[in-house]
């Protein structure tokens, strides 16, 4: 199975080069050449207008999935509290459901959790598939995977979404392998292809340097995990929610693992994902001592302080306060980037912010490319001045 070039037909238009997801075509002296890293995926063949690219790979048959209906969201709860990402996913699911003309369902697993059904309805679920069992009280991989497997087999959903939390990223791959479907991790955008009616799953790859759109044509449900804080909740005023209860048999033997202890570590209570204002520091802050100015600005704005990976590595902030590819994704109303150059890994975590102010001494810093308002200057001067000005302004307003 290979792809080859009929040299006489090739007009050197480079469409193939642009289309190839693997960078495996190049045009030299006006003719396309297939490189060694070609995977025979066939993307270039469809793009080639003069039909110069040919293959002996038979096109893969897409099975008939017309009986697969509905967008499902895994409603992750711990100790009877729903994770925010579950509600965010219900928001996105309503939009996808509109494009497909299908319904939204939540999948709720646990023990004595049925009083969460109302809230799931309020946030967009037409149906709630509820499985309650003593063995589902604490999250355990195999127990939860089995429950979802049985629901999927019985009700045949089209799409299944989970939050990319520590639980979601443990459960989703297990479920995908178990029910025999593909899975796309950590998506930042989901949409429906208008022609094919399939789920287009967009995610960052290579540390956020590249965005990739991925399709799941050959299996159902189309499964994806989505980063917390990326999608928006969409609360419904009144809605009737149908609860579908499913029974399950589970034994300790098949589950295997036992949760001996769950420890919530007390933190200062910083919740970046829910902060309205975030003041973030980068290398330009200079020292631990100088972080104080950021705390003071954040305090004035009733916001939180965050940092880049460097700030966390220096030990100036705990790891929970890191924003970026390897930290958290945030979407505050206002993000003030102080002394942050704006490497792609950091930008990946803060792009969802509504407004961005960037303060940096280097006018070429990439952070200015993603800022609404940029200030080229010394943050040690600008930040305290801004704090004073905001305080004065608030005083004037009588706050």
């Amino acid at each position, binding site marked *: 199975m290979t792809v080859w070039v009929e040299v006489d037909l090739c007009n050197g238009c480079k469409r193939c*080069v*642009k*289309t*190839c*997801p693997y960078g495996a075509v190049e045009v030299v002296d006006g003719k396309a050449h297939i490189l060694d890293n070609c*995977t*025979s*995926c066939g*993307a270039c063949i469809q793009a080639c207008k003069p039909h110069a690219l040919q293959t002996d790979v038979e096109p893969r048959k897409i099975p008939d999935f017309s009986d697969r209906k509905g967008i499902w969201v895994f409603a992750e709860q711990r100790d009877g509290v729903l994770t925010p990402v579950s509600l965010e996913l219900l928001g996105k699911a309503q939009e996808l459901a509109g494009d497909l003309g299908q319904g939204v369902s939540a999948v709720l697993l646990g023990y004595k959790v049925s009083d969460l059904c109302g809230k799931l309805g309020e946030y967009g679920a037409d149906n709630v598939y509820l499985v309650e069992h003593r063995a589902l009280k*604490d999250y355990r991989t195999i127990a939860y995977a089995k429950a979802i497997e049985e629901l999927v087999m019985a009700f045949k959903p089209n799409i299944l979404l989970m939050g990319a939390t*520590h639980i979601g*990223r*443990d459960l989703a*791959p*297990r479920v*995908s*392998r*178990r029910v025999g*479907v*593909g*899975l796309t991790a*950590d998506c930042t955008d989901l949409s429906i292809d208008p022609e094919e009616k399939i789920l*287009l799953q967009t995610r*960052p*790859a*290579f*540390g*956020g*340097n*590249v965005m*990739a759109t*991925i*399709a*799941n044509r050959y*299996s159902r449900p189309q499964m994806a995990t989505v980063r917390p804080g990326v999608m928006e909740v969409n609360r419904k005023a009144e809605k009737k929610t149908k609860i579908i209860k499913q029974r399950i048999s589970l034994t300790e033997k098949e589950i*295997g*693992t*036992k*949760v*001996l202890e*769950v*420890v*919530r570590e007390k*933190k200062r209570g910083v919740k970046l994902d829910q902060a309205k204002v975030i003041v973030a520091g980068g290398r330009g802050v200079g020292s631990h001592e100088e972080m104080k100015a950021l705390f003071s600005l954040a305090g004035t704005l009733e916001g939180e302080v965050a940092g880049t990976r460097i700030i966390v590595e220096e030990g100036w902030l705990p790891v929970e306060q890191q924003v970026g590819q390897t930290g958290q994704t945030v979407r505050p109303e206002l993000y003030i980037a102080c002394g942050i150059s704006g490497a*792609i890994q950091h930008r990946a975590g803060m792009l969802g912010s509504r*407004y961005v*102010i960037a303060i940096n001494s280097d*006018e070429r810093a990439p952070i200015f*490319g993603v*800022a609404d*308002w*940029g200030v080229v*200057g010394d943050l040690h001067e*600008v930040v305290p*001045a*801004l704090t004073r*000005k*905001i305080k004065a*302004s*608030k005083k004037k307003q009588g706050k």
Partner: protein
Amino acid sequence: MNIIVLVKQVPDTTEVKLDPKTGNLIREGIESIINPDDVHALEAAIDLKESHGGKITVLSMGPPQAIDAISEAMGMGADEGILLSDRAFAGADTWATSTTLGKAIEKVENYDLVLCGRQAIDGDTAQIGPQVAEYLNLPQVSYAYDIEKVTKKSMVVKRRLEDGFEKILCPLPAVLTVIGDMNRPRYPHVARLIDACGEKAKIKIWNTADIGAQTRDVGLEGSLTHVIKTFAPKFKRQGEMLQGDTETIVEELVGKLKENMLI
């Protein structure tokens, strides 16, 4: 305790850039490393071997040059290496990759534990560990950062949660995916590294037939998800640069914040 460690050779992603003309990845001249989380998995394996004995087999799927990652792992302390390398493996998604790794692990007899990093820095999916565990029908603990009370039949594993941790009693054999808090990896030992790069190094290279697979099970053909397009991230912002002395700028900023109801 016999341990299989899954490692991946990855490009150092801080260096990866897109060609602005074609939108393709520029891979030339980028250094390859063992995926950072996998190095912690290796260290955990060596640690377990030092206190409980046994053998460490390092397993990797990749192009022929990925043998360097296996040699490096053996330099750290792994006993044997297996490289899964075949043109047919190219273009694999996590489904096809977990099939390939799963079939290879089935060929390795008598193992008590499979360790791997939580996720690879080039794909960031964190899917391979759990998918391999499901393929092998074994229990899993992901985000593992501490191992205690190891017996022949079980171990207690601390698993990181967003707001704390949980202690899990896990029967063996099992699959653990490891995060960086687990340990501080050692450097490869020079003499071991030289041996591991030599001709007598215990490294096997397996292809599709060696693991008992068909080409339709592996690589792009065996994948269920496909990349439709790749593109450079785009950002839309007002991009207004404020000019003047600090006082003027700050005045203007506060004006913007008020205008947009931010204060």
